[in-house]
């Protein structure tokens, strides 16, 4: 018994004060990219050709955050002259088009549908569906339940049964073999319901784009309300997106 108490005193109180107080992530973290639209076209084309995810438009220099895995190659390739990744982890978007950025970003709070805030603002239960993800998205979603983030203090929980849920949170590029289970889970969620696509895989197939064993785009199957990019999305990216969209 004493050991438990001693450990508790030793461990201390760890819950983050975000969003009341801002959090700064380590400088190497790659969040929102800043894009230099005046960059010389040859360099933009070079970055576009080098990008493993084909996320850069070689002509316009726009970056598709839904395809991006934030590997940082374009920043290295251009030595920061074309793109620089900031530590801003606020990446959630309400539409697919909002993820294709030329450097400017739409305000998620303004675009979040008001009826979701009314319905789910005080209590949001989500059913997570792992649709062939690599487990990184799942792991960094799971971590929201640990003391540092403590998701449930905001009234948001992940539940076991879709019957108890207000919506689904989908990760993974949706393999053929998971398609039926995903759709059945969605149908089991009572309306009104919300659909969240989390991670590059569920938005664009992520690293697996082009494979014919995957669907690779959740919006081909279900109407998506919230997009959370990343590979995986940092827990704070998910937390910010959930809080801004629903509260």
């Amino acid at each position, binding site marked *: 018994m004493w050991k438990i108490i001693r450990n508790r005193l030793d*461990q201390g109180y760890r819950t983050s004060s975000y969003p009341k107080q801002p959090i700064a992530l380590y400088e190497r973290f790659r969040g929102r990219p800043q894009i230099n639209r005046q960059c010389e076209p040859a360099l933009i084309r070079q970055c576009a050709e080098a990008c493993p995810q084909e996320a850069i438009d070689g002509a316009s220099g726009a970056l598709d955050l839904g395809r991006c895995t934030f590997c940082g190659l374009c920043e290295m390739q251009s030595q920061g002259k074309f793109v620089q990744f900031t530590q801003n982890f606020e990446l959630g978007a309400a539409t697919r088009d909002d993820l294709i950025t030329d450097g400017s970003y739409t305000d998620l709070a303004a675009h979040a549908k008001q009826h979701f805030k009314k319905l789910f603002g005080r209590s949001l239960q989500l059913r997570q569906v792992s649709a062939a993800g690599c487990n990184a998205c799942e792991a960094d979603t799971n971590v929201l339940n640990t003391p*540092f983030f403590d998701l449930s203090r905001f009234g948001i929980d992940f539940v076991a049964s879709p019957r108890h849920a207000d919506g689904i949170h989908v990760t993974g590029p949706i393999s053929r073999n998971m398609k039926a289970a995903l759709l059945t889970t969605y149908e089991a969620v009572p309306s009104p319901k919300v659909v969240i696509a989390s991670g590059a895989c569920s938005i664009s197939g992520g690293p697996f784009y082009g494979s014919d064993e995957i669907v690779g785009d959740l919006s081909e199957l279900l109407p998506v309300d919230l997009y959370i990019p990343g590979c995986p999305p940092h827990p704070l990216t998910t937390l910010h997106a959930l809080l801004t969209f629903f509260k």
Partner: protein
Amino acid sequence: MDNLLQIANGEVVRRADIPDVSVETFGMTLAEFVRNGGFVVQFFAFAENDITRLLAVVRNDRLYVTSCVVGAEFPSLTGWVSEKFHMFEREIAEQYGIRPTAHPWLKMVRYHRNYSGADDVFGNDYAGEEIPGKYDCFKVEGEAIHEVAVGPVHAGIIEPGHFRFQCAGEEVLHLEIQLGYQHRGVERLLPTVPQRRLPIICEAIAGDTAIGHNLCCCQALEALAGLTVDVGAKVVRTIALELERIANHLGDLGALSGDVAFNPPAAYFGRMRGDFLNLLQVLCGNRFGKGLVRPGGVAFVMGEEQKKLLVAKLHEITPQVKNVCDLLFSAHTVQARFENTGIVSREMAEDLGLVGYAGRACGLPYDARIAFPTECYAELPHNTNQMTSGDVYSRATVRREEIMHSLALIELLLQRPETTARAMMMEERRLAADSLVVTINEGWRGEIAHCVLTGADGAIVRYKVKDPSFHNWTGLAMSLRNQGISDFPLCNKSYNLSYCGFDL
């Protein structure tokens, strides 16, 4: 041994030098090797120019490769030699439509059409809405027997898989595990994509093993492209692999705590795991180490600032890790739940060919860091395990020991003077033609092996991936026999196998 070519981990071999024997000799050679205490690392089929071959990579204290041309069938080695071949033979059947005759349990592995266009060996119809779980599971007959089905969508935030228990009351008589839900077609994809996509895909084979799998990929590309990696980069790569190991072991000890309803360490382990993921983020900006390792070295240099942060955090957190481990393992109620639960005997583990900590906890000491060292492992001290009874307690204890050992390794590595100033960018490189390379690393779950074959112009013709879970899922199924079904989560988490690493 003429029928086996000895190779080294990460060393390019000319395909022309690989023994190409008859199917019968192939089988006899492998049978003799395994009967003499050998293990299977890779065993797969590949097709080129209308000729299909079987290729096997096997190990005792050395590595060997052999191959043979194969037709529509070959005599299965599973029934009459060893269970070590079991899953590999089923995979060959599924991928190429080649039937292993007299295989005792010829069942699909991942549920997908084969690559060759031949008739499906299992008679499945992939065009319909069938899913992997629609299969006649092994059933135990009897009035008091009931079946419990779990998944693919599970209660928590966890990967999908299907478990079918045959129970008499609370006691599980048999557990059958059906995977394949996360099959993304990785092996089919890899030879068709530009080289720059390879590390990105390999980091996503299993996100919690991003460093492990990507090391195998980059080491293979380095060997084929003739790239050297400087010592400073190897230090960073080794640190990253050990950080990955620690983070996952901590997370699982926390999950095990939660499963025996001991919430304080569950919470503390979870938080500490996050601290280690944040150290990977310090190195490369990603909590899973994605983007760190690239062919030729590392994409992000470990400078003085990063080193200082790592040293400081390790200094702060190591006593906390010790204390929380002590809190968990000294609780009598925890011991009562862990001890003698989910036992896999040494004989069973050996016959199945279990790898990693699951194998070590059963008394199989194989650790690829010792047997086939890569990166900095040849110069680092080894770890040994005392508790090897094959139960949950042994697996948890082995993992606790590995955490402490890995912390010590990182400390040693951080003291090394070598640094690398070169941040490697991903580039397309010319690969050696008509070659084979096998790369093995000890991921946190166990032996990861990638095997790459190139063709006449250096293009990759076959990229074979083996995650340690490929061996170990059967261990989990066996550990449930004669256990209470309520101990399933405990056994499952004591193994914590990768669904996506298996499914590819």
